[in-house]
């Protein structure tokens, strides 16, 4: 039923750019596009679950992205400054640095997420306009705090030496960082699917996404799950931010806001509440953006918008969304 025919169309479109560029460029762009898609997926996945389950439009999600990046940056800069773990060619040191950065990024964003949910979101639960306004206000505050703590300028992100550079695969230059990002994204997707489809918590969350009132009437306290989902979504955004920092080798206070609009578009394309929808949508956006940016730089964002419009025309609730 779902996306059989559109999938075929999508695949055809995927191969279309080959007509405009040589294979090598195509492969490089594809890898870059998939990587960008994966990173957007991380942000969009949390966003879509929070929307789907809690009916909350979380503007602060972009700020969590930024905070994850900066928290990871702080750790990486510390470890690299003290012991040179990023510059070092040792895989162990690099891995430790990366692991530490990820853990800290997640920890910080989980704490922020829980605070946000308890203090900011819960009081206005059910009133959409106020939710939007208050999370907007929170995102402004969070972004400004970054500027106060770390200054308003771009800063260079220490990238572990072993994932810099590229591999030479059959005469094609394949950058390492994007591949790592893709791997991480797939791993997280697989983890989420497992959690959602094989555990009882996942079952309740999925049911709650579809019908929040019904799940409560069946004896489950959905508010407890709210905080959990919000925290998980925040952690995802944080990891996404960290990976983006590594990907672009820099951190910027406004980085979250810039990616948030992509995440919104992906959630619209993929459908509210669907993690798979976010993945598919994110990959579509990432790929199309990269192909078009290479061919006609100024049309890149236009193509993303056009994609959104086309999907909405064909399926108003998004590719994998359920009409509520």
């Amino acid at each position: 039923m779902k996306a059989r025919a559109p999938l075929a169309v999508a695949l055809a479109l995927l191969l279309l750019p080959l007509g405009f560029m040589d294979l090598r460029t195509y492969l490089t762009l594809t890898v870059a596009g998939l990587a960008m898609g994966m990173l957007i997926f991380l942000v969009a996945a949390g966003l879509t679950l929070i929307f789907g389950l809690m009916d909350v439009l979380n503007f602060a999600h972009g700020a969590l992205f930024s905070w994850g990046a900066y928290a990871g940056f702080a750790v990486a800069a510390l470890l690299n400054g003290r012991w040179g773990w990023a510059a070092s060619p040792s895989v162990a040191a690099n891995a430790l640095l990366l692991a530490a950065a990820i853990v800290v990024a997640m920890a910080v964003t989980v704490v922020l997420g829980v605070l946000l949910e308890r203090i900011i979101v819960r009081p206005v639960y059910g009133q959409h306009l106020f939710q939007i306004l208050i999370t907007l206000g929170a995102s402004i505050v969070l972004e400004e705090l970054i500027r106060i703590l770390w200054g308003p300028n771009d800063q260079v992100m220490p990238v572990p030496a072993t994932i810099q550079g590229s591999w030479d695969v059959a005469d094609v230059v394949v950058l390492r960082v994007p591949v790592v990002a893709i791997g991480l994204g797939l791993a997280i997707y697989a983890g989420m699917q497992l959690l959602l489809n094989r555990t009882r918590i996942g079952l309740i969350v999925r049911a709650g996404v579809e019908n929040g009132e019904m799940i409560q009437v069946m004896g489950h306290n959905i508010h407890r799950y709210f905080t959990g989902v919000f925290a998980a979504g925040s952690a995802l955004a944080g990891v996404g931010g960290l990976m983006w920092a590594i990907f672009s080798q820099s951190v910027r206070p406004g980085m979250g806001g810039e990616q948030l609009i992509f995440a919104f578009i992906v959630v619209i394309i993929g459908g509210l509440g669907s993690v798979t929808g976010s993945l598919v949508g994110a990959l579509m956006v990432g790929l199309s953006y990269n192909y078009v940016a290479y061919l006609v730089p100024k049309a890149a964002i236009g193509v993303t918008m056009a994609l959104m419009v086309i999907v909405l025309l064909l399926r108003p609730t998004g590719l994998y969304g359920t009409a509520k």
Partner: protein
Amino acid sequence: MAGASLLEVDDLHTYIGQHHILQGVSLRIRPDAVTVLLGRNGAGKTTTMRTIMGVLHPTRGAVRFDGRPIHHLPPYEIARLGIGYVPEGQGIFGTLTVDENLRVAALAEDAPSGRRLERILDLFPDLDRFRHARAGTLSGGQKQMLSIARAFVNPNRLLLIDEPSKGLAPIIVEHLIDALRAMKQHATVLLVEQNFAMASALGDDFYLIDDGRTVRHGSMASLAADHELKKKYLGI
């Protein structure tokens, strides 16, 4: 109606927005019987159910289950006290499978629940057959069966069932009546039903609601004979 009531509703007033929907509903549901809520469209039957279930909060009046006031409790706590709800429109999780729908309803994953589940699947062979199909692909009648089955997964002492025959073909309604008759022996039921044939086939007692108020109550048998009453309040 002698004996302690399982559920008592006292002078319930509920607003939806500015609309004063329930203007004094009072019920006494006796255990091990089927009580039917009758009334016209918009009389407030579904609102009564939703208020009992905690989805709506009354501004006045009380609801007591087994003597214990529940009208200020959130829905999930009311459900855990042993009240099952089969809403209008079934409330099926379409994206979940039939099996998952039943599992998410189960509040305790233990042997008795497992046995109850098996018994339900015996009563509803269709559900067994489509156990791993997406619930959204079921027919209307099957969805209704699933919705009722879900309410039986837990050892609920009271079942609130809202318009189960709505939108179903007559033959399906027949099956429904048979199934509910079989389950009648295991639970107390508060049933909202517009289909008078079904109501009288299953019901022991009735309450008549008009304009948000309880206007009459009695035994189903007495109502069946009272043509005046039926015409006045039910238009039949």
